[in-house]
């Protein structure tokens, strides 16, 4: 075995990646997994044309 990587997926949606053993540098080993999951680390509201300036609606 030349390479061992540990990835922990936490219940809050965050991830940690640890290189246990690798002949490559850590960055090269972890980058494919970081890239695959994207850079946005949390959910957040985004604007849409209908909600700008509006709060929570109680309409159903």
């Amino acid at each position, binding site marked *: *075995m*030349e*390479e*061992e*990587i*540990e*990835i*922990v*997926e*936490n*219940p*809050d*949606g965050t*991830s940690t990646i640890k290189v246990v053993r690798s002949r490559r540098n850590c960055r090269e080993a972890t980058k*494919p*997994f970081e890239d*695959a*999951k*994207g*850079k*946005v*680390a949390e*959910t*957040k*509201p*985004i*604007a*849409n*044309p*209908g*909600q700008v300036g*509006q709060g*929570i*609606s*109680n*309409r*159903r």
Partner: protein
Amino acid sequence: MSHYSALATRFKDRNCLVAALGDVGYKTVEVHETGAALVGYQGDYRDKSDWGLHTNDIARAVTAEVLVRRAYIDPAANDLGFARGADGAFGAIISDYDRSRHDDAWMARLTQRYNLHVDRKKAKSLGYHVKETALPNGAIKLTLTR
């Protein structure tokens, strides 16, 4: 139908998103290449120019590429959608009424499941052997070896 709101996510892999939705209980998920209208509990739509306005014109409806129909959520629920944005990520479209069930904790759980599917897919493509271990705190550890 209550007002729809959007949440940014980092979900870019559609198949992993569908699999993650299955993991959190939504086994029946619709996938539409060009999007389909989200339907509210009264069978109405929301206008894409103003997500607070009702419309019966399907051409003006808020759409999503990945949908969980309200029938699979709750009789009083509205459809849940995920629409691909300009950045390639699927934003979650959730009605305010359903925000209590699809809250931040639910989004976190969905994100955890999505991440696991992405990790497994990437690991497989890179030739790793994957061992999965559930941890006491609800986390899941993947040990990748090759």
